[in-house]
């Protein structure tokens, strides 16, 4: 979807003003910590994947997405996911009181504290084995297709319609557009090099380039 999360190339946000590295805490408030921990813990219930999480944050009103701080967006996304997965209902969210306990089947998936380290260390690899051969080779010119799906996609607007060169074939990986709908489909993934000039016109410095990871469905031969 074309919304406020797709920020590459936007103007007007002003300076970055980074906090000095030596002074910046990992979390700035207690509520941020709790949102982070809750989002991860709830994610381990297995009712949604990473693309569904991203899509939940993206589906806020664009004004809210930009106005919110980072963990406010996580909170908004988590609440949406919990309701959509029917783990809680909107009345329970409003009151903070449970109308009833969760199903026993889902409770069995609750992550215990002693299993956190091992679960994090395992992660969730998304490499897949698929039977088709990759459609593009390193060095080939490709165009990022000018497509505007209403659902989740990882093809940023700033590359759409632009021509780049296949830098590297990564292998087959879960395709985010379908993954956000809850279906696991593998697709070939490439690193594509775009010159700054191809993306931003003649005013861009020609010595710069942007490398973007793009799935086969996002690309066509140029």
């Amino acid at each position, binding site marked *: 979807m074309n919304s406020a*999360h797709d*920020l*590459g*190339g936007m*103007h007007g*946000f002003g*300076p*970055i*003003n*980074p906090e000095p*590295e030596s002074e*910046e805490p*990992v979390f*700035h*408030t207690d*509520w941020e910590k*709790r*949102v*982070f*921990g*809750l989002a*991860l*813990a*709830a994610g381990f219930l297995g009712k949604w994947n990473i693309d569904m999480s991203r899509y939940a*944050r993206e589906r806020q*009103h664009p*004004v*809210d997405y*930009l*106005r919110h*701080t*980072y963990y*406010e967006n996580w*909170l908004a996304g988590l609440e949406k996911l*919990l309701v959509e997965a029917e783990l*809680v209902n909107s009345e329970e*969210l409003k009151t*903070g*009181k*449970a109308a009833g*306990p969760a199903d026993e089947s889902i409770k069995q998936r*609750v*992550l*215990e504290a002693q299993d*956190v380290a091992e679960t994090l260390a395992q*992660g*969730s690899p*998304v490499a897949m084995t698929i039977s088709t051969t990759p459609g593009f080779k390193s060095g080939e010119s490709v165009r990022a297709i000018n497509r505007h799906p209403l659902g989740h996609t990882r*093809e*940023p607007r*700033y590359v759409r319609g632009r021509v780049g060169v296949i830098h590297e074939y990564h292998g087959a990986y879960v395709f985010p557009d379908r993954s956000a709908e809850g279906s696991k489909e593998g697709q070939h993934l490439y690193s594509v090099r775009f010159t700054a000039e191809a993306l*931003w016109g003649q005013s861009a410095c020609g*010595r*710069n*380039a*942007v*490398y973007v*990871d*793009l*799935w086969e469905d996002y690309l066509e031969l140029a």
Partner: protein
Amino acid sequence: MEYVPETGSAIKEEIAVSEHHHSHDHDHTEPPSDLVLRVQALESLLIEKGLVEPATIDVLIDTYETKVGPRNGANVVARAWGDSEFKDWLLRDATAAIASLGYTGRQGEHMKVVENTPTVHNLVVCTLCSCYPWPVLGLPPVWYKSAPYRARAVADPRGVLEEFGTELADDLEIRVWDSTSEMRYLVLPERPEGTEGWSAAELTELVTRNAMIGVEKAKTPVNIGRNR
């Protein structure tokens, strides 16, 4: 349809602006109470329903506050600086090379390391969200997740680097890596001059988080008060 803002928007807006722009004049450690209450309500609801364990949340927070952070990445870089075989492996199969040092898992399942050289400087961003290699760098800083960085890194990397005090020669190629997939990128900075014979432990002192994102270079011996 007319946009209807959420409740408490005036206060939230002020907080959002202060965090998005990281104005140090504003106290952004004081969130609006409605937000704190909302988070507390959600946590108590999920605990009451039996969907989360409070102790699990504490361990998750503690893991990324005290255990997993950029010192891991610094160990990877220092090892690569001192061991050319490891460096070759790291550039060829970063996931395996990094795993050999014990750094694996969530948000680092598929790693790529990109090397700075005298002619190429690399910079990592996630324009669409906040993708970042957790096992080697921990959780991303606020600025990495902020709209101005995500907007500008791909279109004006030189301007972004200047804001971090990093000046590069005009003819240097800047390569920006937009983390649009589950590949997670780590920059291998150039080893500073004057560090011949340094141990891996000494070298890690030169490797900052920002250097591994690519907004800065590694520190020099002079930067850390050593000049030999």
